[in-house]
């Protein structure tokens, strides 16, 4: 490689016109010759055998190990978010009581060739099932600020959505993520992203995908099931502060997306929704570290607001269990937000506070207003956490939450969690 470069440089030097006219050039060449000799000596000196490096393997492999102890004052089987019914396969709630293995993650990633990067993140669940969390390829060689990503990946909408749960600052996802995205929105999709040629970070992007996950629903048809648009901007204020803000839109068309809701007669009714779902996300992050060095102290403030408009048809009692199947128009505008701050007050130790609230907004069941009630309860939750990181690769966390996600109940939740990573030293997103 070096030799090749030297050849190129030498060729360039020969090709350079009027070089001899300048007396300095000859001396410079001599110096470069001297340097070449020096480099030759270096290269020919007995090589110290460098050990095979983790990073030099192709591909890099890393494993995330995580376990959790949860003490919950309420039975998690009853957990729901009042006014925001979710399909049975969405991820929400505090999980199991007692000791449990949290999600373990196996990540394999590398540059495929000069043109593509590829990553597979395989998620191993405590119930002995496994799933492909992400499996995507991404372009490296497009110019003009473009990157294209294809495969299964977490959408770039919002701030937290594209981050893996092991880099979250709290054990669980904010209620807005659970209520509006079923935890996190990942899809089988294609993403185009463009970075503007400006000093301020400006990124525009769009995704088109299958729409297999909530708030969409999997279906067998051609075309696009979910589409997103997002714009992010960010920058520095001096050395000590940096920030990022964003707006995003997620557009999906779920078909027969199911939800179970207690009806006006007090029965658990199985219902389905078909129509359009548009979720708007506004996100903002501000990070502070003295002189930009986060090792001793740092602070991170982050907030996201989501607003969703869904319209279409709801079929009440879709499975006919109550013998009262009835379809009617549906129109709902709902919103929610969270605000959190995490402060590292000394090396390895951080404390965090999170407060969040959902607004039931306006829900009109049309002809089904006779069967289903419009919600008027504001789910909320306050959380405090403290974590201790023994190194970059291990973290132990204690978290306490007062969760008022469902009406009339305060679920007091205590979590103890460990999060560790082994293998390749991955680079983290902002």
């Amino acid at each position, binding site marked *: 490689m070096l030799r090749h470069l030297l050849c190129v440089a030498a060729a360039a030097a020969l090709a350079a016109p009027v070089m001899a006219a300048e007396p300095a050039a000859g001396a410079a060449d001599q110096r470069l010759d001297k340097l070449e000799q020096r480099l030759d000596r*270096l290269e020919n000196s007995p090589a110290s055998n460098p050990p095979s490096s983790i990073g030099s393997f192709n591909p890099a492999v890393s494993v995330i190990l995580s376990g959790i102890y949860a003490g919950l004052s309420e039975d998690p089987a009853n957990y729901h978010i009042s006014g925001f019914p979710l399909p049975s396969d969405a991820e929400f709630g505090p999980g199991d009581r007692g000791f449990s293995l949290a999600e373990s993650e196996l990540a394999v990633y590398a540059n495929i060739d000069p043109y593509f990067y590829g990553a597979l993140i395989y998620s191993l669940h405590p119930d002995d099932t496994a799933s492909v969390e992400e499996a995507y390829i991404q372009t490296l060689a497009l110019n003009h600020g473009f990157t294209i990503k294809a495969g299964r990946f977490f959408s770039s909408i919002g701030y937290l959505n594209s981050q893996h749960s092991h880099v979250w600052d709290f054990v669980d996802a904010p209620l807005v993520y659970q209520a509006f995205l079923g935890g996190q929105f990942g899809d089988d999709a294609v993403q185009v992203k463009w970075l503007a040629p400006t000093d301020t970070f400006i990124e525009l992007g769009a995704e088109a995908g299958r729409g297999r996950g909530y708030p969409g629903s999997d279906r067998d048809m051609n075309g696009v099931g979910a589409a997103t648009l997002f714009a992010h901007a960010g920058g520095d204020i001096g*050395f000590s502060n940096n920030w990022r803000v964003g707006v995003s839109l997620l557009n999906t068309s779920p078909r027969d997306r199911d939800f179970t809701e207690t009806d006006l007669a007090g029965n658990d009714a199985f219902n389905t929704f078909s129509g359009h779902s548009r979720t708007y996300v506004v996100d903002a992050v501000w990070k502070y570290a003295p002189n930009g060095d986060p090792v001793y102290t740092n602070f991170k403030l982050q907030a996201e607001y989501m607003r969703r408009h869904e319209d279409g048809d709801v079929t009440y009692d879709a499975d006919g269990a109550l013998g009262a199947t009835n379809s009617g128009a549906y129109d709902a505008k709902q919103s929610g937000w969270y605000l959190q701050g995490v402060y590292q007050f000394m090396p390895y130790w951080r404390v965090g506070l999170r407060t969040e609230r959902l607004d039931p907004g306006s829900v009109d069941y049309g002809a089904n207003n006779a069967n289903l009630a419009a919600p008027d309860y504001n789910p909320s939750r306050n959380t405090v956490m403290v974590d201790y990181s023994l190194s970059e690769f291990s973290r132990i966390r204690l978290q306490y939450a007062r969760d008022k996600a469902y009406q009339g109940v305060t679920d007091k939740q205590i979590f103890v969690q460990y999060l560790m990573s082994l293998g390749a030293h991955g680079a983290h997103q902002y």
Partner: protein
Amino acid sequence: MKKLLLALSMAAGTLLSPYASALNVFACEPEWGALTRELGGDRVSVYVATNAFQDPHHIQARPSLLAKARGAQLVVCTGSELEIGWLPVVLRQSGNDAVQPGKPGYFEAADYIKKLEVPTVLDRSAGDIHPGGNPHIQTDPRNIAIVAGVLTKRLAEIDPGNADYYRSRYQDFDTRFEAAIQRWEKEAAPLRGTPIVVHHKAFAYLENWLGLKEVAQLEPKPGVEPTSAHLAEVLDQLKHQPAKMILRTPYNSERASEWLSERAKIPAIVIPDTVGGSEKAKDLFGLYDDIVQRLLSALQ
């Protein structure tokens, strides 16, 4: 959509292009920014991603870095996995083909330096170790001199129109720098064999250059903050293996070295390990001037 973006991109590219004249260089650390300025003069526009008060092991891929990497024609970094926690993600998301690893626009200085402290066993129980060897190569000016030559060739390759300009600047820089190295070596002669304690293993190349003898580190393992138990051990060790001074970088907390300084009755000094790390370290010449002077005054 893509057409629109492409059109937008090209329009913005013509209007906002910051590299109409000068070569845009993205330097990971201040020393490479300073060296590129020495070699490139007014033909380069240098952006330095980090400052001397940031621990180079703990840099975040903040949004402004992506914006700067997108417009760079040359990325100059240390390598040896010093930037592994942030640079790969910045380059991957930059949408800039020219500066991807393996391309002429990507330059790792440590590739051309014989590394010290190359580990024979790779196990994280030994702390934050770098498989390629100690990456803090910039504390030996002889390494800077080597990198200057290779970087000149790289600048000439990327920007052939200014190749002669870079070569003549290199010649001028190398003459002055080699003379300065000889002066520093003469001045620093009394330091040879001086036993020292370091906070982090950030000075291996400085020690090798000036013949300092590192007898202990304040970090129990590389990258692990000093613990009181370990500091007590070091204090104990110094009783039968005395050292003359304690060295730390500007980004290390003073607590551990001041604690030890008080008890072991030896001075604790801050050694700027890159340009900008002290008042006098304004450029590469000021940096080593200041390093040598600080070491000498601590010896007295």
